[in-house]
């Protein structure tokens, strides 16, 4: 029956199925939990599991909001906002190929596939993908809607319908945005624009997390009651949350107008997408991709000034990492993700008023205010190492294996480069912030010095556990999102303990502080030796075999 329907729409059923099956395999087969060559995953579609786990967790968070909130329209609109945001970031950051991939042109353009069949397969692919995301996010909230006030299955259905609609609208809006930006911006430049957009979006992700936790803590979620007014038609999430109001039996003209507006906007964008999701469009992108964009010639970079980066492995590592940071947009953006996190955590600390407080003078106040800031600080080395190991340019890492360089020395040099060029400037910037709030510059210097030693220790531990060569492992879809998520949790736990011990138990005593400095210095030396030994042993086994 489906074949007949497709044929009537002038879509080739066999080609449609083959294209859809293949694109789903490609999307869901790669992912964080995908098996390596040595350690094969038992799961056929690791990417799918990764999406289900990650977005399922997000759905659980939304469920709490729905349980706490008394207002259906407020909880529904919040849920739609989160769904739209998740779909947008997911497509922009990890799954741009859902919109259109230049590779399609190289592989498919010489095959006898009509534009309509290609479009239909792309649309179906997107719908499946959106179905998986919204299904994963929406399962728990829909169940909460069903059972929250008695048994109301229609509300569960409405939540799912609304979320799917919100997802489709967002995807279509992204296509619209993408296509129109491509008219004025070169694809390579556009990718850079999206990377910066990713940075801005991370502000929103971390920011909304903070706002939600503040709302929960203040008990505000229970009290929010938003009246539906006509200005709300300007907010797309309300178009889809209105489905809940209608299913609840509150079907006034405004709710119907909202739904009509949402459906109309989605249909208009869908019609627009029909002209764009074609192989001809993929050809245009591929062609643009192959042409070089106008760029000013790069200035030759200065030689490394520190003695340890002037020669041999140290020089090679410093040259590679600094240049990758300069030219590899993905790496640069991964590293810069620390900026929004730090800024938002700083704002969160300062939002209560009274500044950050000096930990040597008022440890309790400092811990309370700056706790989040230390999460970011502890997370930075984790983020750096995670961003540094995986790369799209991983195949170039044969050079480490084919030259007589000492792989152990490279790994250790990488750690030093990260400390000198990334961790220290970051901590110095934090030091500048501390200057405004600490009572003495001596306190700032001592505190930043101790934090630097701690960061270095974290890097040493990471290097000991995973001594990988820089940019030597292939990137995987979804890994960054999941990696950041896990990293933040670990950093939060570790740093809560450390900063409490430091500020409450050690800083009040000069003697204890001195001992701590000595212990940290000793630990650094011991770990350096241990790391060198372990790295040497482990790197001997490293092969270029991914």
């Amino acid at each position: 029956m489906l074949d007949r329907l497709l044929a009537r729409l002038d879509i080739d059923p066999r080609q449609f199925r083959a294209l859809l099956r293949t694109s789903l395999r490609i999307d869901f087969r790669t992912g964080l939990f995908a098996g390596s060559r040595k350690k094969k995953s038992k799961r056929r579609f690791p990417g799918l599991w990764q999406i289900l786990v990650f977005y399922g967790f997000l759905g659980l968070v939304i469920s709490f909001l729905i349980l706490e909130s008394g207002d259906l329209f407020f909880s529904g609109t919040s849920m739609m906002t989160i769904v739209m945001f998740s779909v947008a970031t997911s497509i922009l950051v990890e799954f741009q190929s859902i919109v259109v991939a230049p590779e399609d042109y190289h592989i498919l353009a010489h095959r006898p596939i009509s534009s309509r069949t290609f479009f239909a397969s792309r649309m179906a692919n997107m719908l499946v993908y959106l179905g998986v995301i919204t299904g994963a996010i929406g399962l728990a909230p829909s169940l909460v809607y069903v059972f929250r006030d008695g048994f109301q299955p229609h509300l569960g259905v409405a939540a799912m319908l609304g979320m799917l609609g919100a997802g489709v609208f967002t995807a279509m809006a992204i296509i619209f945005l993408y296509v129109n930006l491509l008219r004025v911006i070169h694809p390579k430049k556009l990718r850079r624009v999206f990377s910066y957009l990713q940075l801005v979006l991370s502000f929103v992700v971390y920011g909304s997390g903070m706002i939600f936790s503040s709302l929960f803590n203040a008990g505000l979620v229970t009290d929010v009651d938003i009246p539906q007014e006509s200005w709300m038609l300007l907010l797309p999430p309300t178009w889809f949350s209105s489905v809940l109001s209608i299913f609840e039996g509150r079907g006034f003209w405004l709710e119907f107008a909202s739904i009509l507006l949402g459906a109309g906007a989605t249909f208009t964008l869908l019609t627009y997408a029909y002209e764009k999701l074609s192989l001809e469009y993929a050809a245009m992108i591929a062609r643009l991709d192959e042409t070089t964009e106008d760029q000013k010639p790069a200035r030759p970079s200065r030689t490394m000034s520190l003695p340890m980066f002037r020669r041999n492995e140290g020089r090679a590592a410093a040259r590679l990492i600094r240049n990758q940071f300069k030219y590899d947009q993905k790496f640069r953006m991964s590293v810069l993700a620390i900026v929004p996190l730090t800024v938002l955590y700083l704002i969160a600390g300062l939002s209560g008023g009274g500044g950050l407080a000096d930990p040597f003078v008022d440890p309790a106040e400092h811990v309370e205010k700056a706790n989040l800031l230390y999460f970011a600080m502890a997370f930075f080395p984790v983020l750096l190492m995670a961003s540094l190991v995986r790369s799209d340019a991983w195949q170039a890492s044969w050079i480490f294996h084919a030259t007589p360089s000492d792989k152990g020395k490279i790994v250790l040099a990488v750690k030093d480069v990260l400390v000198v060029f990334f961790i220290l400037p970051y901590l110095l910037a934090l030091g500048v912030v501390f200057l405004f709030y600490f009572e003495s510059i001596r306190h700032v210097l001592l505190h930043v010095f101790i934090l630097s030693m701690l960061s270095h220790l974290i890097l040493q531990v990471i290097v000991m556990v995973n001594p990988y060569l820089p940019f030597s492992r292939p990137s995987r879809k979804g890994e960054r999102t999941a990696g950041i998520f896990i990293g933040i949790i670990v950093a939060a736990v570790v740093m809560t303990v450390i900063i409490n011990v430091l500020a409450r138990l050690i800083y009040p005593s000069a003697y204890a502080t001195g001992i701590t400095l000595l212990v940290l210095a000793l630990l650094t030396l011991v770990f350096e030796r241990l790391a060198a030994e372990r790295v040497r042993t482990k790197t001997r086994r490293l092969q270029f075999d991914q």
Partner: protein
Amino acid sequence: MIRALDLTKRFDDFTAVDHLTLTVEPGEILGFLGPNGAGKSTTVKMLTGMLQPTQGTAEIAGHDIIEYPMQVKQRIGYIPESGAMYESLTPAEYLDFVASLYHLDPELAESRFNDLLDVFGILHARDQRMTEMSKGMKQKVLISSALIHRPDVLFLDEPLNGLDANAAMVVKELLKKLAAQGKTIFFCSHILEVVERICTRIVIIDKGQTIISGTARSITEDTDSKSLEDAFSRITGIRDAGDLSNDFLAALERV
């Protein structure tokens, strides 16, 4: 057969292919040569329906590429130089996918691709993901994917890339036999020895235009050269290779 008439492709103010006219008869293997950036790939992309010509037209297997692109695509097989494939698939999945696009019966397709993979000695890897395969193994899958639907016209852009000597020999013999069966073969390569050995005719282009065409022997004689390689370097105007290599060595010896 392939018939291109006045084929031209312009990208803004850059002319990649400039009024190119050529014919390749069934049973012929045409060696299509040129230095980097000469317009070879753009020509192939136009002939395979991947790019629209700015001017001129072409006929493949009796169908106009602009009027009847689908009919053209049904009759051609193409091996791109980039070797682009969906590498997260296994060879079996990829070949099944390609066969479906040409509407081959699944059982027939499976037996055919099993045979092709067997000939290339990689049947044991048919269910292994291509991300884990060597370049040569992937190239064998790519060649199989271009032949699976038994096309009348073949466009091959550096088809021997990454192949071992035995597999390369198989492909060369295969091309000769396909030509003998009446297939039309358009062969782009920088390996001039191979072109000289298997191509029945050669066209050399530069800056989008044909500079010379004929058999390997006629081109060598017409340009008063010792070999096809020598003729190629003369007519595409590079500096003397001996001088260049001396400059290279001098750079290495600088202390």
